[in-house]
């Protein structure tokens, strides 16, 4: 019997069933699926073997599966990610083989539900990392720390991608040779809101590129403008970890970019100033002493003073620094702290600080913080310690602590422990009004907590959770289970019951037998 024949050798196979002509089987190739990634409407897998994105969207009791081409047989999908607002999927295609010389790297922007034409950007390099601007207007592609499948590449090459249009701009950072480690958008604090800063009367949308011992600033609205590269290694002596941009205001007219090192008691302050010729901007560097070990920082404006509040992890204190004078004061907290955020309260703002692994949440009202008598930190005990902390909203926190969850209501300072037989990861949660939705990888339970009544309910699944998503579009919880062919359970968040849930499986191979 002849061995496998290619189809071209089997021209007359249909008339000669006994000849043994055997075209290649369309089912021999391994199903190469990566993901999933969740958008607001669908859970998306990338079928790398067939160069498609598979959008899976619950619709009532049914499951809508939509396949969208991403690249072709000469390319492969290197990675995919959802945008901040989960309305789109970004997927980068690269040549499938180094022998494909005429194939350029392209970034696909696909609608979150898969319905619609993709926008394709020529980005011209196999970037390995993605940074998304919180204002939802841009993505920055760069070479991260991961391995690059290129014989030679420019480590400082980046691409600005306009997520509102169809253009991508390639730029090379004019730095000092430090390896790029991260990209930040320090001026953008609110999701979906453009937050340019005024530098010399010109609005600048600034991105900060943090490399080893240096920071490079670029105005994304004008990438061709001169870049501002600030060396920090020899002059300042630290490696930047994160940045924070304070726009100019009546208290301090010039915008300032604060750069925090990984360790140390100083924070870099880059005052952004216009170039003398008016063509761009520059930065004036200064160092602010902020205790012994600055582990986190925020900016705060009292009625009269522009403050930089820094967490000093070595002394468990909040360091208030007047950025104009670099003078300030410390507020010791009676608990371990490493991280901080501000929340709105009646009449002002409140600082909330905690430390991973700690057992206390500290709060400090900032209404009259200049008055030393008014500085009265308060604490909320978390008996089993803090593994993970998630801000549910302005007033509520969810803390994972071993096999327990704690729901903390900050206005009332109420701490409600929720015991479970197996630990929940608060990062795998979603808030739907007053209903907290929980599902942790490895568990077989989906739980909801009515935060108003603090009454939990749990539903047993038929298989262990791999990923937990809440899709606001169809308003369904989607729990994926381990399966190469697709296996998930759709749960009604309003009534998480077995009788109202529905399992779908094999959807990644839907219609597989109809392949040509």
């Amino acid at each position: 019997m002849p061995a496998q024949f290619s189809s071209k050798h089997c021209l007359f196979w249909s008339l000669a069933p006994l000849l043994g002509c055997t075209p290649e089987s369309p089912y021999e190739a391994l199903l190469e699926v990566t993901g999933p990634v969740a958008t607001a409407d669908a859970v998306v897998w990338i079928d790398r073997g067939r160069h498609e994105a598979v959008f899976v969207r619950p619709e009532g009791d049914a499951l809508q599966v939509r396949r969208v081409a991403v690249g072709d047989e000469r390319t492969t999908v290197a990675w995919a990610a959802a945008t901040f607002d989960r309305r789109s999927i970004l997927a980068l295609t690269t040549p499938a083989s180094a022998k494909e010389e005429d194939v350029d790297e392209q970034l696909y922007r696909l609608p979150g539900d898969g319905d619609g034409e993709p926008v394709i950007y020529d980005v011209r390099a196999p970037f390995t990392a993605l940074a998304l601007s919180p204002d939802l207007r841009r993505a920055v592609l760069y070479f991260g720390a991961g391995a690059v499948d290129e014989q030679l590449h420019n480590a400082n090459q980046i691409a600005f991608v306009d997520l509102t249009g169809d253009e991508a701009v390639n730029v090379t950072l004019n730095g000092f040779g430090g390896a790029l480690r991260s990209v930040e958008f320090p001026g953008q604090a609110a999701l979906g809101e453009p937050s340019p800063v005024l530098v010399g009367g010109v609005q600048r949308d600034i991105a900060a590129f943090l490399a080893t011992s240096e920071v490079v600033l670029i105005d994304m609205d004008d990438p061709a403008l001169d870049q501002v590269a600030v060396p920090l290694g020899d002059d300042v002596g630290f490696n930047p970890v994160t940045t924070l941009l304070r726009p100019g205001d009546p208290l301090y007219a010039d915008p300032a970019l604060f750069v925090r090192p990984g360790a140390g008691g100083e924070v870099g302050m880059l005052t952004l100033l216009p170039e003398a010729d008016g063509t761009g901007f520059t930065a004036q560097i200064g160092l602010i002493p902020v205790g012994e070990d600055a582990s986190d920082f925020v900016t705060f404006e009292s009625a009269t003073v522009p403050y930089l509040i820094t967490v000093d992890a070595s002394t468990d204190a909040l360091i208030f620094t007047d950025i104009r004078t670099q003078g300030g004061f410390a507020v010791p907290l009676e608990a371990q702290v490493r991280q901080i955020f501000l929340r709105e309260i009646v009449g002002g703002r409140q600082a909330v600080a905690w430390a991973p692994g700690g057992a206390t949440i500290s709060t400090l009202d900032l209404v009259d913080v200049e008055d030393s008598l008014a500085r009265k930190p308060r604490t909320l005990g978390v008996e089993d310690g803090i593994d993970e902390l998630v801000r549910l909203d302005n007033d509520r926190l969810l803390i994972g602590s071993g096999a327990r969850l704690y729901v903390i209501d900050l206005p009332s300072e109420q701490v409600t422990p929720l015991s479970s037989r197996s630990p929940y990861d608060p990062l795998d949660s979603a808030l739907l009004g007053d209903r907290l939705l929980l599902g942790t990888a490895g568990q077989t339970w989906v739980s909801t907590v009515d935060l108003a009544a603090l009454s939990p309910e749990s539903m047993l699944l038929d298989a262990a959770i791999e990923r937990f998503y809440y899709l606001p579009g169809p308003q369904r919880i989607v729990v994926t289970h381990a399966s190469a062919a697709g296996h998930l359970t759709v749960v009604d968040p309003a009534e998480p019951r077995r009788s109202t849930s529905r399992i779908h499986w094999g959807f990644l191979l839907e219609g597989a037998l109809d392949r040509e």
Partner: protein
Amino acid sequence: MNTTLLIVALAAPPLTSREAAPVEPLSPLSGPTSTSSPSTSSSTSSSSTSAPATASSSSTASSATSQTTSSSTTSTSSTSPPSAGSVEAAAPPEADPGAPVRSTPASPPTTSEAPAAPPLPPPEPPIRPLRWRLDLGPGVGLALHLDPAWRAFDPDDRRVAAVDIGLRGDLRLGGRAFLGVGAAYRQFSGRGDLDQVYSTRLLAREALVALRVSAVMVEGVDLFGQVDGGPSFVDFQLTGSPSGGGKTITGVVDGLGGVALYLPRRWLPRRGASRVSAGVEVIAGYSFRPAIDVDAALQADEEPIEAAPAHFGDLAMRGFVTRIGIFLRVF
């Protein structure tokens, strides 16, 4: 084949030395005639030709012999009583294509003076006309499933082997033609994998009724056309994570043609009296089944969450088929 054949059966007992003594010397013509070649004793031969042969049996019976010869000569009637030197008309009662020529041995001479002849073997019964046939037997087939989807159930080959067993009855329509109906059970299966994610298995079981028209070219060789049809019960399994499977019912219609080779009666023991034969048939044609939806239900424990079936696509198990079968025939 329907031509009446007359065979002269030389039923005279072998000559003994005692009987041979009074025999007169044979004429030159009598010598070859006495060798009793059937061809020389055909019904068209004249009485004078046959006379020496009969005369040679006994000179004392010359009158009787002469009478017999006369009877044979004048009528060549099949109604003549069988006797030495008689000729029998061997026409069958009904045309039987392929039936062997019947030859009935003649009775020994009944002359009172002649010594008792040794008993002859019993006459062969007449060959029955073939009015019906009943075939039973298994077969193996090879189908070429044209739908590429079949490769999910057999990654190496589009051909699938099937086994069957069937029973069929034929009735003679007249002449060479037979019309038959039958029933058969057939099954085939496949194993494969789907994108290296699922191990697949499919089993199809089919109950068929068949209609066959046969033409007997010669006894032992039939050409036929056949139409099969019936339900096809298909079970499929996909084993993986998670696993599932399903059952579905579709139909099948085969359009087939072939040749059947079987032992003719003349080759069988007891010849025309045999009622059993056997043979082999080779069939080729096309098998059609409507496409089935491979909708698999999730395998789950008791009281599971309701699961939607997974739709893996359509599978059309249709294509060219060949088959070889053996059968035992009763007629």
